[in-house]
């Protein structure tokens, strides 16, 4: 079901404009159902979070590069994990330059859900995003019906059957 006003957001954080537009292009199948917000720095990302909070649009997924000017992508993921409003957001690093220490920190303190090594294949990226967004809906018990056609429908439907999500017949 297509929705003109997506109720969930995806943040893509990447300082290289060319790489950022590649990520956004690869995520095109999701753009009808989700609001995809490209940002080039953590400062911009924080501003976006404020705007989303004002519009009551929850953040479902953050796709972050690690190496950024100023605050790193890993630090940003840790921030997301510390804030009540964004803790449920799925967190994915998409990077070539994160060292062991940063990766460990992203996992332990940022509750990292997935790590994508650059360069990536578009279909792999889409599979990860589909899987993570599906998990987000299940964990937050969001009504899955508007997202069935773009996400992992069998998984969402089985959970729906298990949880008797809608039963008013």
């Amino acid at each position, binding site marked *: *079901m297509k929705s003109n006003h997506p109720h969930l957001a995806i943040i893509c954080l990447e300082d290289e404009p060319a790489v950022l537009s590649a990520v956004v292009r690869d995520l095109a199948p999701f753009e009808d159902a989700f609001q995809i917000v490209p940002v080039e720095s953590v400062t911009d990302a924080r501003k976006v979070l404020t705007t989303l909070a004002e519009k009551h649009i929850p953040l479902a997924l953050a796709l972050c590069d690690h190496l950024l000017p100023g605050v790193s992508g890993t630090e940003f993921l840790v921030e997301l994990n510390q804030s009540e409003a964004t803790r449920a957001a799925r967190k994915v690093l998409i990077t070539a330059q994160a060292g062991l220490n940063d990766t460990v920190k992203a996992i332990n303190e940022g509750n990292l859900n997935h790590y994508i090594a650059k360069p990536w294949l578009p279909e792999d990226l889409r599979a990860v995003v589909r899987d993570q967004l599906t998990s987000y809906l299940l964990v937050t018990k969001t009504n899955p*019906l*508007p997202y*069935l*056609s773009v996400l992992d*429908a*069998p*998984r969402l*439907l*089985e959970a*729906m*059957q*298990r*949880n*008797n999500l*809608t*039963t*008013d*017949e």
Partner: protein
Amino acid sequence: MDQNMKRLLTAALGLVLLIVPLLLPLDGLSPAGRITFGLFLFAAVYWMFSPIPIYATSVLVILFQLALLSNASPLVEFFAFPYATADAPSADKFTGTLAHPILILFLGGFMLAAGAQKYHLEKNLVRVFLSPCKSPKLLLIGVLGVCALLSAFMSNTATTAMMFAVLIPVLGALELDDPLRISLALSVPIGANIGGIITPIGTPPNAVALGALAEQGIRVSFASWMAIGTPLAIVSLVFVTFILLKMFPPKAKRIELNMTGKFDRSTRGIMLYIVGGSTIVLWATESIHQIPSSVIAFLPIALLPALGIVGTNEIRGISWEVLWLVAGGISLGYSLKDSGLATWMIGLVNWTSLGDTGVIVGFLFLSILMANFLSHTVTTSLLVPIAISLGTSGVLAGPGSLAVVAIGIAIASSYGMSLPISTPPNAIAISSGAVETSQMAKVGAVMAVFGFIIITALAIFVWPLLLK
């Protein structure tokens, strides 16, 4: 209009209507009847526009009844109602609707469904049914049939969700322009909706009708219901198969369905099959042993937890709000009669000129029409009490007719399936992306007309013989 504004307005409208009958000069209607009238209008607005969830409205109705109509309320005396506090209905009458025998019957069905789901019984049944279906026609028939069979015992929504989980890989493998995608996606909610009419526990509207009839001392056995519902369901499934094949002729020649799995052979799994099988057999043979179906429902309710087949997780996962929803409907129906509102309302219209047939036709038509836009349970909860009042005031002749019209309303509501909002199975089908609203509306409209004609014919000519 903004969504919040609409909610506020409908919420306010309902509350205003709650008071209006107290202020109007309604000749001959007692204060208790006026309160019930207001309560009925309030429930109608809240159920139809749902400013709050419909199950919340149901328990709110019970709260209002306790506060304004029961012997536990100090208000009853304060308003100097025609009966003294001692004559007002006992508070237990209203709170007791939450444990009404019909709801116990449903709870038994829910427990069986929870056990079946935990041990993947329903998925294995689907596998057994669908694995021989290699051609598009057979697959369509198989899906319609197995959805109907499962939803006769499980909720229509759970059946639909499970079936789409199975079918989505099949739909994905078909060519995008193959009409089989549309017919398959439609066959799931249609099969599930129709399956709901097969047994009393198939879908909540059935409970509303049976609950209201039980209040009149009319007991309809599990088997009598099935004798009404099963032939009708089979005829409807055959009809819809033809319609779907005609409207959406499949292009694919062969279908590959890769379903693996096997029946759970663990001790608990086998005990589940035994308890489930015995319960269903006992339900179907009520006429022989005379044990009410609600009593038999206690077998799964007690045995499945005792045997460790369902645990706290499954018990918490039961759709308790559906039971509340039905309880509110039964409770409201009780006051309608007890307060004298029903008798008063009936006096307003010259029903006898319509005759039994006219009344039945009218209610069936309203039920199918309303059920396309409203929850089926709400439709039944609003119509059945009125129909029952007609029966008890002598407009409908005899208890047989009373059962015919109440069951007819419940069954007709299951044929309201032309829009995504008609019922949750339809919403799931549209969300799958394989079918469009206009296609659903076309088939749904055909089903509504078909349902109206055949249910009317059966209700007038056949059911009176079955429900003597």
